């Protein structure tokens, strides 16, 4: 079983990438579980054709965790991809990070963490220990950083690399960096920038996903691109991404950049 997690700045396209990745992996005949780890609980929505599935934490809140079965939290979507949403407390109250930890404990107890590949789609920033949960305790072994060539997005990716570097030093942790995915915003020199960033943090660019209008069109149809336009170039990109990740055996411990290194890196690449 391969367990991977996608991390990156909020709004960068993690969920779109994750859903298309899961759909493409399922197209290879693999049994896929995708777990959305964000209180917004919209990670699996395109796989579920627009349906908001009940979140694990909603169920815990309503029923208590004693009376929940795997069938209550796992929903089959496109190509049989099994979808789970962790959910969270109401915005502005409680502790979403602890909610992620409770979700993992419940999924573990329900024996729901299985399949050929588990894809964890996590909140933009690793704001606290709870949101690092997918990286801990041997859950996700490979982390993929999703970033565009925008500097704020690269900064966020660098921050996440710090979390990976820290957690990989722990004895029980087996989390490593699988690679960097460039989800392009169509900025000049974007691929080179992200490629160089990946190299400097001791990793590599494993996929370049061009910006394409078809992603938005598919989303309006509440579908992944892989489902909506399977013959499109964009679908081919996701299929290639799926094959690369599934076959990826090269991972690394990242060497995140210091702030001054990041700033001089930015100066090198951004034409003023």
């Amino acid at each position, binding site marked *: 079983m391969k367990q991977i997690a996608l991390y990156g700045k909020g709004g960068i396209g993690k969920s779109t990438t994750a859903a298309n990745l899961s759909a493409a992996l399922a197209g290879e005949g693999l049994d896929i579980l995708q777990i959305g780890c964000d209180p917004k609980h919209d990670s699996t929505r395109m796989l579920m054709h627009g349906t908001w599935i009940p979140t694990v*934490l909603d169920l*815990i*809140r309503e029923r*208590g*965790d004693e009376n929940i079965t795997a069938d209550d939290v796992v929903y089959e979507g496109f190509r049989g991809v099994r979808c789970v949403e962790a959910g*969270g*407390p*109401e915005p502005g*109250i*409680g*502790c*979403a990070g*602890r*909610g992620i930890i*409770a979700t993992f404990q419940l999924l573990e107890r329900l024996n729901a963490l299985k399949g050929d590949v588990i894809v964890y789609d996590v909140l933009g920033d690793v704001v606290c220990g709870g949101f690092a949960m997918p990286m801990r305790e041997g859950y996700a072994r490979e982390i993929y950083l999703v970033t565009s060539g925008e500097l704020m997005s690269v900064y966020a990716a660098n921050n996440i690399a710090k979390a990976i570097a820290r957690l990989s030093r722990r004895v029980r942790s087996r989390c490593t960096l699988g690679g960097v995915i460039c989800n392009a915003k169509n900025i000049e020199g974007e691929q080179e920038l992200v490629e160089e960033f990946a190299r400097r943090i001791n990793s590599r660019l494993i996929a370049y996903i061009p910006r394409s209008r078809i992603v938005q069109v598919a989303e309006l149809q509440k579908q992944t691109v892989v489902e909506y336009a399977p013959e499109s170039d964009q679908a081919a990109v996701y299929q290639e991404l799926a094959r690369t990740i599934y076959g990826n055996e090269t991972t690394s411990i990242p060497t995140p950049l210091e702030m001054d290194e990041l700033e001089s890196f930015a100066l090198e690449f951004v034409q003023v």
Partner: protein
Amino acid sequence: MNSNPSPSNSSRFEGCTLTGALSVTTEIRDAISIIHGPAGCTHHNFSLLHATLLSNDRLEVPRLLSTRLTENGIIFGGEEALEKTLTRALSLSPASIFVLSTCIVETIGDDTEAVCAKDRGVPVIAVPTAGFLGGVFEAGIRNALSTVASLARPAAGTTLSANLVGEKNLEYGVDENAAEIARLLGRLGIGVNLRFVRGIETGDVERLGSAAVNILREPALRPVGEDLERRLGTPYVDSFPTGLAGTCRFLEEVGRICGVDASAAIEEEHAFQAAMLGRFADIAGSRVHFQSPHPMLRGDPGAEAICTECAEALDLTADPDGAAIPYPYPAPVGTAGLQRMLHRWRILIREKQRG
């Protein structure tokens, strides 16, 4: 961000903020203290307070309720649990309710004050007591005293009386010490207005402002003394008296603040002290060796001076081979406290002489 206050005078500058605050709020006997957090925070403190009450011969049960938060309360927020516990507390008809926070509810950002702000017919008062924010036992006492003081009414005028502020309710000699202060104040014709806070009722706090002087238990309570002076205009003496000369100085200071001539009282107390020392003439001239009360404990910083003063008064000689006498902790209060200390010295000196 908070950082620990630097310890200045005792090991009470450690420990749990919550416990410090509870040692105050549970002494308001018609109040209920709600601890907003996991059940364990309440159980632990209940046991401590109950045991302390028993060791002071008080067959009472501390009036504590817990919001009993569990993991779901932490994830989804604990304010609902606090509402329910407040309803339960109200059903027991308390005169006031104190809501004390714990580390975990401050971490997740529960708005305890907002929940307490609703009108429920009796005062419901939030006391911030999360220890991880840098507060310690002593900070809990200070927070609680200042919070309880919000129940005071502005006084029309003052009477020739004093408040005892911040008695150490968890210490063994708390009532003896209060009695000693009452005896000393009696020499000046000054009565005790309020023990703030020990064994009182919610309504009693209203008269907090009618004393002419506040007598703080120890200098660490100065912020509370300042706070009460600002709010109610009552000047303060910053500590219960310690030592022979210190006790006389205390009479002088209280007299000055209250506008009472203390010279006669001081003379009487001098004579009282001389008579007390006279009863220990049998140990005069003995050899003694003062030492830390325990290798794990720091002594009371005032203790050394007090021991030296008493040793001189009784003509004791410092000698490493003399009877080992621990520095007292906490420092004994007033002349009566010294008398109890000298009783213990006599026992140790006699034991040493017997070999």
